[in-house]
């Protein structure tokens, strides 16, 4: 009877009274970007048109974000850094940049003119414009990093909820698997998985999921263990709710808050991981620009004071994005502590 009932949403009242403009904006920004980066080639010629709605959406989200975070200066700085790169990612095809893959004038130092073109950040060993590569380079890191983190969260949260709420054998098995995975140093896990699957964005998602989900699962499990002792869960149990309903509608929304901070930090870790793996040759593959790839390629060619800009540019770019995520996490934590 009650056991097989499929849980329904919290309530009509709740749903009707709350339109979610932020969610709509996030989707407007994210889906085109994801489509562009993951399936840009498949879309073909005018793929950049899909990014058109994403640009205003990103700007609006930024304004909303600033308003929401205004209490914390740290968070605002972090948000600004992250949104700078998001904006670059969605608008790169529309910016007056040179083709990031086109060899123009090799080894042009920054702020010099060559072939009647001015190179703000110089060019790399193939003569590709560094400014353009840096800006285009954020697309793949952002898209794959965020996607990987999201997937890891979905998987981790799912198992965490099951493990924490249902306990017993579920917990034993899930916790053991998590322990096995956590016993591998992250990089070892990445190397083994990517080596097996081969390097690609989708496989990075898989690898990050394997590496991050156990930790997320532990956090969610801990939260679930705490929340399940709350009276409202007790109330749901005593009115005979299905465990699935309790996990999704009673636990999950309350787990959400604490893990947002963690998610921001983890976005940073994932960005580090993707850059590092790409540097090691296990991550994203050339020729499209990517920061890790820029480092990888330049490490061969630029180990000299006068060429060090080739390494410096991607290194600073990736650090600024990670700093953005970390500052956001810091600010969010600070704000949550104040409440």
């Amino acid at each position, binding site marked *: 009877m009650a056991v097989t009932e499929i849980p*329904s949403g*919290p309530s009509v009242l709740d749903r009707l009274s709350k339109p979610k403009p932020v969610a709509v904006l996030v989707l407007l920004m994210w889906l085109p970007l994801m489509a562009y980066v993951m399936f840009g080639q498949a879309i073909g010629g005018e793929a950049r048109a899909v990014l058109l709605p994403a640009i205003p959406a990103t700007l609006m989200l930024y304004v909303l974000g600033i308003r929401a975070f205004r209490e914390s200066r740290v968070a605002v700085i972090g948000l600004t850094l992250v949104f700078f790169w998001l904006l670059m990612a969605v608008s790169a095809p529309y910016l007056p940049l040179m083709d990031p893959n086109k060899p123009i004038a090799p080894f042009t130092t920054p702020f010099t003119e060559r072939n009647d073109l001015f190179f703000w950040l110089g060019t790399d060993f193939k003569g590709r414009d560094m400014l353009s590569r840096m800006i285009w380079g954020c697309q793949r890191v952002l898209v794959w990093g965020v996607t990987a983190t999201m997937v890891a969260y979905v998987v981790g949260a799912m198992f965490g909820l099951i493990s924490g709420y249902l306990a017993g054998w579920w917990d034993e098995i899930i916790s053991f698997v998590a322990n096995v995975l956590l016993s591998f140093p992250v990089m070892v896990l990445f190397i083994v998985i990517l080596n097996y699957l081969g390097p690609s964005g989708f496989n990075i998602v898989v690898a990050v999921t394997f590496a991050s989900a156990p930790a997320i699962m532990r956090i969610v499990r801990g939260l679930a263990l705490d929340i399940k002792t709350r009276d*409202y869960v007790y109330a749901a149990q005593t009115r005979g709710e299905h465990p699935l309903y309790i996990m999704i*509608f009673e636990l999950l929304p309350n787990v959400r808050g604490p893990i947002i901070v963690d998610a921001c930090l983890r976005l940073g870790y994932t960005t580090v991981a993707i850059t590092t793996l790409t540097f090691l040759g296990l991550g994203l593959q050339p020729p499209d620009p990517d920061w890790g790839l820029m480092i990888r390629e330049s490490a061969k060619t630029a180990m000299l004071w006068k060429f060090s800009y080739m390494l410096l540019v991607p290194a600073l770019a990736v650090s600024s994005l990670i700093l953005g995520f970390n500052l956001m996490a810091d600010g969010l934590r600070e704000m949550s502590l104040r409440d």
Partner: protein
Amino acid sequence: MSDHAADQVPVLECRNLCISYYTRAGEIPAVVDFNLKLMPGEAHGIVGESGCGKSTVALAIMQYMGKNGAIVGGEILFEGRDMRQMSEEELRRIRGSRIAMVYQEPMASLNPSMTIGDQLAEVPIYHDGLSEREALARAEEMLAKVRLPDPKRILASYPHQISGGQQQRVVIAMALLSNPKLLLLDEPTTALDVTVEAGIVELINEIAEEFGTSMIYISHNLGLILETCDRLTVMYSGEAVEVGDIHDVFDEMRHPYTRGLFGSIPLPGADKNAHPLAAIPGQLPLPHERPEGCNFGPRCTFFRDGLCNVGRLPMHAVPGDDDHKVRCERFQEIDWDRDLPKGEAKPPVEAGDTVLSVENMTKHYLIEDGGLFVGGSERVVKANEKLSFTAREAETVAIVGESGCGKSTFAKVLMGLEDATDGKVMLGTVELGDLPVERRNAETISKLQMVFQNPFDTLNPSHSVGSQIARVIRKFGVASKDEEVEEIVFRLLDTVKLPRDFAKRKPRQLSGGQKQRVGIARAFAGNPKVVIADEPVSALDVSVQAAVTELLMDIQRENRTTMLFISHDLSVVRYLADRVVVMYLGRIMEQGTTEEIFAPPYHPYTEALLAAVPIADTRIEKRHIVLKGEIPSPTNPPRGCPFSTRCPYMMPGTCDAELPPLRSFGEGHRILCHLDPAELAAMEPVIKPKVEAAE
């Protein structure tokens, strides 16, 4: 003692003390214009509800304001010297030696990674320059003075190795080590069980006598203040509203809030039908939303526009008594004898047929002492042992007991979250004992609902109030169309006296009392037959408690619902219960009607419980019974009678060997005790009116 010689210097004097906190929202005044004069040997109580600033005062006296608090005005004179002018070093020398403090949560107040001996010895080492050995010897002596058994063992223990009551005694010993002039006690017994609390209160009173220490006793419990203090300050929302001799304030209160407080607490004589509680309307203002003029104005029945809400109100001395002051502009216009707050009397309700019957219900847990693979030992925890009682329609049955008595387990079995090990639980004709909630049908589930203790936990913070009530309505099939459900949600909100637009609110926008009302609405949404109320008001402020209690009773009365009221507070139980079940360590020690329970013959445990509960009524005299020791752990209960380890009537060889017989005294009144029925019947009442009225 009331006429002090003029040359006597007060131990402590606060003059126009103002304390503020600095937050994002700016400066929030926590305490405004606070005055206090404490003479040597005097015990002064500060009473008030949460957020009134009473603990802030204590910490301000210690000059310990945290990083965002500050004393913004006034003076604190300790033995005539302004503490605000003292250097850090001077303060350090006073703290712990001249002024000492006892805290609300003893466990958190002791360093978990240091032995008690080390923590105690520090005080004489740093204040009196004793060597470590001397200091430890002094500590041991002091532990003995606070009646701790085996002081040597305790010195070597870490805080977590001793019980909560013992921890509090350690904290008190620590405070007394340097023989302080002034002792600040900040809710020292709130975290403890009633019978343990009684022991601590007794100790405090003895200290006051033995050491002659001046004390400031902070509490929300008027009864405790009455038992410990000479003078009293009543605080409301950052201000002292009434100050005076304890008897003056209790018997001739001159502030509407003070009187409201007394009206809200169930004193002996209150009765849910004849003399229901009179709740103070409204709720406490938030610190940054205090009204102009009198803070109590918006809730006050004597409020007068243009008088009470203008400017800052001063304290007025009550004519004829300089020591008695009130912060009220109209106290002289009010007829204090006539305008007593009174609830509306209601006709008593006739109990109907038996709805719930529990028969020999037993619940045992198996605890595995985890071995590496197999072979870990198993222990049985007898959470509930042979519980038997019945509850009739529209009846309120109170289940009384302290922590570990098994009342929560019992609720879990009833709600179907645990299976009974043995025995029967019948709801009407449905046997619930081995019917877990997943296997119960919607009708059975909806017949049995629960109101929870903690208002902050009872509602899911992520969903709106309306949706949480609506879910119950749908789930129990009361209605399914959106409009109908909405209509019922609104009606329920009306019933619990909340505005309809609360449906859209999230729980965090509600106060504790309001949340509890929503919890009640939710419990009654499925038209239950039986409602289990697990300490529904114990976490609420006194002035709000009454309103919620009354609401609960009204709805119950209207729906003829059976209520199982779980509580440790005998005052509330006496007020609202029709019948009472007293539990101790998983067993029912005594059950009967409320009158039977509160009059002899008592079970010795009931007797001790009654004696332990502080009563805020000067006209009542209580017998003095303090139980020794602590409640044993349910995982390791004593042999024989579970109460035998603490029972003043303990008969060695009998009580600690065999389970006592169940003795019946008239219909339904049963006592589980070895004592002779005659002996039980010969007991004197614990509470009786004072023969001689206090002056």
